[in-house]
């Protein structure tokens, strides 16, 4: 009766073990295959970026890019050509090239708009005379930099102000100051004119002494020099540097869809050239470059305006008759009361600027200092690449000091040096700042002192950079021509400093992040600027000169036809890349199959509050697709092999235990004359039968879990499960059956105590008794420890594979996406391994208790409490767990190290984690055996022995 029950229990235990193994195997291999297909699918779908090859001059490539197979981004603004138009044509002619889109950088063009601040509401209606201070502050770098500009003062009096109108000014007489006519008729000279300075006296254009102003306004009826009624307003100036580049209209339309991104006006015509014009009454022609302007600023910046009402003493300063310089300095020391604060973003002034460039015909009416340059291309600036040195984990940008006066050199009219963006005063990391001034060839220098350039800009329309096709975000390649996504904080301190915002380009063109071109012209228009002698460069160093011979900085190449992820396609791409490099001698990077990755760049602290920052620039990791597919293949194979091994060993354990439990039965049969063939037949028939049923149960379990977890298991796997279960059961049962088929009949009838004749250390405590028990049946202890060893080794391997896989593929957007996709299968694999471990250990403990049931019954009969018996089982289990876990962790560590090619910290942590979970698992697995312990038929066991 009890033998039959033991036999049924063992068969059920074996059945459940095979079912769990089959379910785990089906689930996991199915999930691994699906995960591999998903990975390859994701990679294939994101394989092709906007361009397949990037061609650059060889000297533009950083050593870091070559070392780590990267392509940098944000490089364009600092490049001074290096590729000739002929080389571009050669690239176009290479067989298999569909589009070769060049970008020729020209430089920064400054454009300004006046910002009128109306102070009517801030005036004290009771004061006879008052002075208001308007303090502008430029806010940028996600609010970290606050750059104060020179204040603008407004003197308002209730008296009349007399000014000499422009029409009555005498030539060469200077500007006479306005006169305030007091109530008693006394006239006081106020608001002295700024003294003109020669080039030698120029201050830096960001020097606040040069950037403040004083405006004087009288009561109703007072008029300004142009005869207009005086109003209580001050005028500030907002300057935006526009980066200008030349592109080929047809290539750009084909590559990036620039033609479809036009929002107002029209797109360039094919190879559009500058048009020739002549101003009314002028002898000399000028050429007008066709220009497309970005309809959004793409740089960040805000202007905060603080209005203060100065103390009454300030009005006396204005009336004191001191000169302009001293007066503004004195006003700067006056204290005041804040009365208003306003903030405006760059968007509105930018729109105004674009609007003015689109309608230059109306500019003559509004001609003023701030808009003088709207049409003419008097001059433009170029800056060099960011000054970086290689740091341990990326790049470190170094401050690159330069003489800020260079920005003032472009001011053709005396006052406009103050129209330089105040952001220029912040730290620069780009040197090589040079100005290129129009030489107005063909003008007769003597012809009436005309100072007009021979190049102008004619806006044909605007484009929306957001409408440019950038391809999939996961395989995005640098599209510096259209946008700079900015850089996130790379460490916690930087992220915190940035308040979770992203550092984006601002008006400081010598900063780390450069703006994308906001103005585009055509390659055919380049000669107007790049023809030798069209523009002259200052400083006149050779390396600062425009690269007139090779004006193109990069060429982005798209190949003809479909390009797949298959090896043949990859080889074709490689051959084309080599052909381009061979014909032109240029650096060719294969961007096909690449993905964005983060490059840490250390950005030194700014002069106005921005702390040292580590930011992550979105560079590109080349060849990611191939690595991903390879890693996914390898992981899929490894997972399948690992799970197969774990399942087979778990079933081997269960089989050994089942056959062990029935040793007596086989012994009796042998005593009765059964030979080995008979015994084997009996065992294999039973095992196959159990395997068959377990196959069904396991498949049902697998399908259930797959449904719950949302996994898609291929039908082939489901159908294979049943024959696989039978095969697995037979294979794993082979060895124990073979051993059991030659039982020693004597072993069966010999009393159990005769089997042991070794003196052990006297167990005087529960723990030592538990250890003595483990040592007493070394085979069974080894079986239990082995179950756990396998589980822990598998878990270590699995964690190592997962980490290694993630380590191989993460760090790029595509890799991260794939890792995220593969997460479910990783979790399933870990869960299956742990479940198999728990079931295996529980099975061994169960067998232990069944075989030693009489002992437990005896302890119960002599007065041990239930808790004491439980403790004995738990200590035995943990002992087995520690032995098996340690061996498993060591084995897993070795295997993982062999797989990863060495031991590293994550692998060691994996093994420690697996060991800890192994011991925890044994502690968990005592739950069922302990429940069984409570149901032991004590009396029956004691009576039967």
């Amino acid at each position, binding site marked *: 009766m009890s033998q039959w029950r033991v036999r049924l229990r063992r068969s059920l235990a074996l059945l459940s073990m095979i079912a769990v193994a089959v379910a785990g195997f089906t689930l996991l291999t199915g999930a691994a295959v699906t995960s591999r297909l998903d990975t390859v699918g994701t990679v294939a779908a994101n394989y092709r970026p906007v361009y397949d090859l990037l061609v650059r001059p060889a000297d533009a490539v950083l050593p870091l890019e070559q070392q780590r197979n990267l392509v940098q981004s944000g490089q364009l603004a600092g490049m001074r050509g290096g590729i000739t138009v002929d080389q571009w044509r050669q690239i176009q002619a290479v067989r298999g090239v569909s589009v070769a889109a060049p970008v020729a950088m020209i430089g920064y063009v400054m454009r300004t708009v006046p910002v009128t601040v109306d102070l009517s509401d801030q005036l004290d209606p009771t004061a006879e005379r008052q002075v208001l201070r308007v303090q502008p502050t430029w806010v940028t770098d996600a609010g970290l930099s606050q750059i104060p500009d020179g204040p603008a003062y407004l003197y308002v009096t209730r008296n009349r102000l007399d000014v000499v109108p422009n029409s009555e000014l005498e030539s060469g007489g200077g500007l006479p100051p306005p006169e305030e006519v007091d109530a008693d008729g006394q006239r006081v000279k106020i608001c002295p004119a700024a003294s003109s300075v020669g080039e030698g006296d120029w201050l830096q254009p960001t020097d606040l002494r040069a950037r403040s102003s004083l405006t004087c306004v009288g009561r109703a009826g007072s008029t300004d020099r142009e005869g207009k009624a005086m109003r209580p307003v001050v005028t500030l100036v907002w300057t935006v540097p526009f980066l200008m580049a030349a592109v080929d209209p047809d290539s750009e339309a084909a590559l990036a869809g620039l033609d479809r991104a036009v929002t107002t006006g029209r797109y360039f015509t094919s190879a559009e050239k500058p048009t020739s014009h002549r101003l009314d009454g002028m002898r000399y022609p000028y050429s007008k470059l066709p220009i497309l302007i970005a309809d959004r600023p793409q740089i960040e910046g805000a202007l905060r305006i603080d209005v203060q009402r100065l103390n009454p003493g300030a009005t006396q300063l204005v009336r004191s008759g001191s000169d302009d310089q001293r007066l503004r300095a004195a006003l700067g020391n006056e204290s005041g009361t804040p009365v208003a604060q306003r903030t405006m973003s760059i968007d509105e002034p930018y729109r105004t600027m674009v609007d003015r460039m689109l309608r230059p015909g109306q500019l003559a009416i509004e001609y003023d200092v701030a808009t003088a340059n709207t049409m003419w291309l008097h001059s433009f600036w170029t800056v060099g690449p960011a000054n970086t040195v290689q740091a341990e984990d990326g790049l470190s940008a170094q401050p690159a000091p330069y003489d800020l006066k260079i920005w003032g050199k472009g001011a053709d009219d005396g006052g406009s040096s103050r129209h330089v963006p105040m952001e220029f005063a912040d730290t620069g990391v780009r040197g090589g700042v040079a100005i290129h001034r129009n030489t107005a060839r063909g003008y007769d220098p003597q012809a009436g002192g005309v100072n007009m350039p021979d190049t102008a800009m004619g806006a044909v329309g605007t484009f929306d950079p957001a409408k440019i096709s950038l391809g999939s975000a996961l395989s995005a390649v640098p599209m510096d021509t259209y946008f700079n996504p900015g850089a996130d904080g790379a460490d916690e301190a930087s992220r915190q400093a940035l308040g979770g915002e992203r550092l984006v380009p601002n008006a400081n063109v010598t900063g780390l992040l450069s703006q994308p071109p906001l103005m585009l012209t055509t390659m055919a228009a380049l000669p107007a600027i790049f023809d030798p002698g069209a523009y002259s460069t200052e400083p006149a160093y050779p390396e600062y000169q425009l690269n007139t011979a090779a004006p193109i900085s990069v060429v982005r190449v798209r190949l003809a036809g479909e390009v797949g992820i298959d090896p043949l396609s990859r080889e074709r791409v490689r051959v084309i890349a080599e052909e381009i490099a061979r014909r032109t001698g240029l650096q060719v990077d294969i961007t096909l199959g690449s993905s964005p990755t983060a490059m840490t760049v250390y950005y030194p602290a700014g002069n106005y509050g921005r702390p040292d920052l580590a930011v992550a620039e979105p560079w590109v990791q080349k060849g990611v697709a191939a690595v991903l597919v390879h890693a996914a293949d390898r992981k899929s194979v490894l997972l399948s092999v690992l799970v197969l091994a774990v399942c087979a060993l778990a079933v081997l354990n269960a089989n050994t235990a089942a056959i062990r439990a029935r040793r007596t039965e086989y012994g009796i049969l042998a005593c009765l004359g059964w030979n080995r063939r008979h015994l084997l037949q009996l065992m294999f028939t039973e095992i196959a039968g159990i395997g068959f049923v377990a196959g069904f149960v396991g498949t049902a379990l697998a399908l259930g879990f797959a449904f719950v977890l949302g996994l898609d298991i291929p039908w082939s796997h489901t159908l294979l499960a049943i024959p696989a279960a039978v095969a697995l059961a037979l294979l794993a049962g082979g060895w124990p059956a073979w051993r059991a088929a030659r039982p020693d009949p004597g072993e069966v009838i010999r009393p159990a105590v005769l089997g*042991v*004749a070794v003196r052990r250390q006297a167990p005087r*405590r529960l723990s030592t008794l538990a250890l*003595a028990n483990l040592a007493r049946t070394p085979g069974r202890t080894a079986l239990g420890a082995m179950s756990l060893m396998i589980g822990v080794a598998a878990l270590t391997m699995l964690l190592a594979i997962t980490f290694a896989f993630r380590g191989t593929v993460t760090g790029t957007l595509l890799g991260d996406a794939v890792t995220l996709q593969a997460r479910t299968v990783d979790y399933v694999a870990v869960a299956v391994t742990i479940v198999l471990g728990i079931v295996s250990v529980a099975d061994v403990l169960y067998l232990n208790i069944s075989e030693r049931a009489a002992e437990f019954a005896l302890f119960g009969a002599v007065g*041990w409490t239930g808790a004491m018996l439980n403790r004995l089982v738990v200590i035995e289990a943990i002992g087995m767990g520690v032995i098996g876990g340690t061996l498993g962790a060591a084995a897993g560590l070795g295997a993982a190290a062999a797989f990863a090619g060495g031991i590293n910290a994550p692998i060691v942590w994996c093994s420690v984690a697996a060991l800890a979970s192994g011991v925890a698992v044994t502690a968990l697995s005592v739950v069922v055996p302990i429940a069984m312990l409570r149901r032991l038929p004590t009396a029956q066991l004691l009576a039967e022995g």
Partner: protein
Amino acid sequence: MRRTSAEALTGVSVPLVCLTDVRKTFPLPGGAPLVAVNDVSLSIAAGTAVALTGPSGSGKSTLLHLIGAVERSDGGTIDVDGQRVTGLSGGALAAYRRRIGFVFQRFHLLPTLTALDNVMAPLIPFRTAFDKAARARELLAMVGLADRSAALPSRLSGGQQQRVAIARALINRPAVLLADEPTGNLDSQTGTAIVDLLLRLRDEHATTLIMATHDTGIAARCDRVVQMRDGCLTSLDR
């Protein structure tokens, strides 16, 4: 003769073991339950040696298991030394079992422990006021195995193993010693020696001995013989 605690208090003779209408049934698949002990009432005075006799399946072992609280009765009451055994559970039940000594037909020695350690085995999880090893040695000497204390069970004869089991049963100085066919696995000569030992111990320690046996010769040497058949008492000798 040993006095029970109730006797000590009242001076009136009270039986040490008192069974009243004790009943035990076992469920059988698809049929009426098997009545192993059928409303048995029995009183045993302290220090008495009682033999329970009867054919196999008559309920001798079950009755011993009920007295030893290894089995739970389905009805009736069992009182031992003034304590109501029926209804005990948890720690109280385990504590009661420590006051009872049990000797089995199959000895149930732990094969990895020496004779000395086997005698001490019931005390392993407990702290005691006395020296466990000294008491175990004393008991081994008492059963005539002083020189075999370091031997493993596999090196002992059947009779020696049963002596070790008897010593183990006495480690807690029990008031009642229950022996279930203690000679069943032994030849008649060894069996006689074991019974001699049990009776000597009863005499020396005033232990109450209740022994199940189907050997009439052995039964005849006890103070009382109680016969059982089909779970009922059929004869109460003396």
